[in-house]
């Protein structure tokens, strides 16, 4: 007998159909993962179970929990079920908690709102629940405020709130997407443990197939609001029926072949780089404190080499990137590009040698300019920027090189998808033929299938333009395939560097080892699966 039973669920908002005939079920003590790319309707499925849909949403079908059809319950009855019979964990722990209330009050609220216990008992229970999710009372008293906790700790509070009344069903919507890999591993282990301990059903929504393969008993693959395939994890991984499922798994583990790097000849040299941030004064007349974000970092990037820089959030990799771009000053050491110094006031000649591609395909462009103007912004650095037909030809050539059409030059950025925008960002970085390109989490915001295409594009460009790049990312799988050599950064320092394969297969530093151990890996599906 299943706990949650969804039969032919259809959901529409206005005229647009969001879910079409979705059917799935979750048994007590079972972990069911719903996966798919953006727009697949996986999150809407979760919200439909909670009956926390947008106001105009219209749902039809069967959606029953323990035999109760949730679609037929009154709002009052639903309130009684939410939090008591169904708990939910969300994606963004940084914003999921009320900033002006203590964590104790917020956990207690779940208990008190359902009048499950008298206040004094609820208080004690809240403390127990926080202990259960790994927040011991001596370090995390009930009086803490959310802003005093890290992202992983906040997610634990959200989980404590969700499980406080031991719900039969827990829904987790991308619960670890916003977290670092080591934190992700801990949170996933906690969820797995809670499911066993409490005998809850867990409906887990995630785009990360490695997490899915690691954790789930059963998998549901969705696309455009429909379930394309579902089955037990082992059965589905061994025998994928639907081409979309195969494509998804293949793209998640997409490998590219880079041309061999030429003989080492230094292009970028970072020597003992130090970057301090001023902290607010601790006392009114005391000297302001400093936070050292980058600590004595040295490395060399050779011409034609593809270098990776990995590390978790806050390790200083973004700061280092900005210093290399000459956007922020160094407090010690130096950075040389092609023998010349990099700094805030570097010459146009020096700046011309370097370009950058950022993460956010939606924030990287001025929405008011057309594509031709957007990608020619670096012309500002040239002494004699091409004009007339030479300019047109160069724009057309560059757009073609990144897989777009020359006609796209006259369009505005909002007319493009996320993947296309990243292609335009690459075109902008490429158009002045810089010596070095920095990719700052350049594929992190993309769906796996789009990501695979962009990685292919990079490999192609490496062949045709002999690119040299520094690829900054938190995604170990991507770095492994797209770089020759890798730097591992932790707390402002480079703790390990070496040839990418060597570092990944036999990491020397304890931190690298823990990083690689924490990263969920896709099971080896054999070469034949790669059809993307």
């Amino acid at each position, binding site marked *: 007998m299943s706990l949650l039973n969804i039969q032919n669920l259809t959901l529409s908002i206005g005229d647009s159909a969001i879910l079409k005939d979705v059917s799935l079920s979750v048994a007590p003590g079972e972990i069911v993962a719903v996966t798919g790319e953006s727009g697949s309707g996986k999150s809407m499925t979760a919200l439909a179970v909670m009956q926390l849909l947008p106001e105009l949403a219209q749902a039809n079908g069967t959606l029953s929990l323990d035999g109760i059809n949730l679609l037929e319950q009154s709002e009052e009855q639903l309130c009684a079920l939410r939090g008591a019979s169904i708990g939910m964990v969300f994606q963004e722990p940084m914003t999921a908690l009320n900033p002006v209330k203590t964590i104790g009050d917020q956990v207690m609220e779940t208990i008190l709102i359902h009048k499950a216990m008298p206040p004094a008992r609820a208080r004690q229970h809240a403390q127990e629940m926080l202990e259960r999710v790994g927040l011991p009372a001596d370090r995390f008293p009930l009086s803490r405020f959310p802003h005093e906790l890290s992202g992983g700790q906040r997610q634990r509070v959200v989980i404590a709130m969700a499980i406080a009344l031991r719900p039969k069903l827990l829904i987790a919507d991308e619960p670890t997407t916003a977290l670092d890999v080591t934190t992700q591993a801990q949170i996933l282990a906690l969820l797995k443990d809670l499911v066993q301990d409490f005998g809850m059903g867990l409906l887990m929504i995630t785009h990360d197939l490695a997490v899915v393969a690691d954790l789930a008993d059963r998998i549901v693959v969705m696309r455009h609001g429909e379930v394309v395939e579902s089955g037990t994890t082992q059965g589905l991984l061994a025998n994928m029926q639907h081409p979309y499922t195969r494509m998804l798994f293949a793209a998640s583990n997409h490998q590219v072949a880079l041309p061999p790097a030429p003989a080492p000849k230094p292009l970028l040299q970072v020597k003992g780089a130090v970057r301090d941030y001023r902290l607010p004064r601790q006392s009114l007349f005391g000297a302001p404190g400093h936070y050292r974000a980058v600590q004595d970092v040295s490395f060399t990037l050779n011409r034609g080499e593809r270098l990776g820089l990995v590390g978790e959030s806050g390790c200083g990799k973004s700061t280092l990137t900005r210093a290399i*771009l000459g956007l922020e000053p160094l407090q010690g050491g130096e950075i040389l590009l092609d023998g010349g110094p990099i700094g805030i006031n570097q010459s146009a000649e020096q700046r011309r040698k370097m370009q950058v591609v950022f993460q956010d395909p939606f924030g*990287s462009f*001025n929405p008011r300019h057309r594509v031709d103007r957007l990608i020619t912004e670096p012309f500002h650095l040239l002494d004699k920027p091409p004009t007339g037909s030479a300019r047109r030809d160069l724009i057309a050539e560059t757009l073609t090189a990144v897989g777009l059409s020359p006609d796209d030059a006259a369009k505005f950025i909002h007319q493009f998808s996320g993947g296309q925008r990243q292609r335009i960002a690459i075109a902008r970085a490429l158009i002045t033929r810089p010596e070095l390109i920095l990719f700052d989490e350049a594929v992190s915001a993309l769906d796996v299938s789009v990501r695979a295409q962009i990685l292919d594009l990079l490999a192609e460009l490496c062949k045709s333009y002999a690119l040299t790049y520094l690829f900054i990312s938190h995604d170990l799988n991507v770095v492994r395939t797209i770089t020759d050599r890798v730097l591992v950064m932790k707390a402002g320092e480079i703790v390990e560097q070496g040839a990418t394969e060597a570092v990944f297969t036999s990491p020397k530093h304890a931190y690298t080892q823990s990083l690689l151990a924490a990263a969920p890996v896709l099971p080896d599906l054999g070469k034949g699966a790669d059809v993307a």
Partner: protein
Amino acid sequence: MSRNLILGGAMSALVLLAAAVSFVWTPFDHTAMDIPSKLQTPNVIHWLGTDHFGRDIFSMIMVGARTSIAVALVAVGIGMSIGVPLGLAAAARSGNWLDELIMRGNDLVFAFPSLVIAILITAIFGAGAVNAIIAIGIFNIPVFARITRGAALSLWQREFILAARVAGKNAARISAEHILPNVANLLIVQGTIQFSLGILAEAGLSYVGLGAQPPTPSWGRMLADAQTMVSFAPHLALIPGTAIILTVLGLNLMGDGLRDWLDPKLRVART
């Protein structure tokens, strides 16, 4: 386009039209006294009646629109032309002494409501429309500086600005090329709101005698004149009051409509 924008735009256009037409034509000379026909209620000859000197109220309202619009418009112009560059500069130098100086200066000006500035100026230079403009204009500077800085600060964090910096553009060029066009909508909407507030402020200053001086007609002073007669000639107060309300309402509706039309996510300070 929303109903707000059309309705508000039409009301504002009507007031603007009345002010423009008053330069070439009014039903009567707005200064011509005609004691025998004083204090008439609205009728066929005097569409909105006459005041205690027998002057035609409709003509006075038309000419008064001129004063209101001129004062408010110039005051918004002063506020924008000084406040926007200050806000852009503060955002470009966020966190350093220039930003600190500009923002502290703003806080200071905020401590002087426009009426207090007007009192200070009047105490020194005497009352008049020009001084009213300066008082309202000074008060507008921090409003525009603040809203520009706030919007510009979030833009400076955006990656397209970083890309422009990597392309070697300096802060002034980035402010002009990337920041200003992206805060323009916000400024247009805020400008509309400050314009309506300027009309209210001008009316208030004229009412207490700190604004436009006779013989320059003004809605605020018409109300001051009407005060002693409100018990037996309420139309003297009702008509200029309605003119002010309709103008301000029209501008506000237009501002709201513009905001929704240009960008539903715009943040506008309504104070």
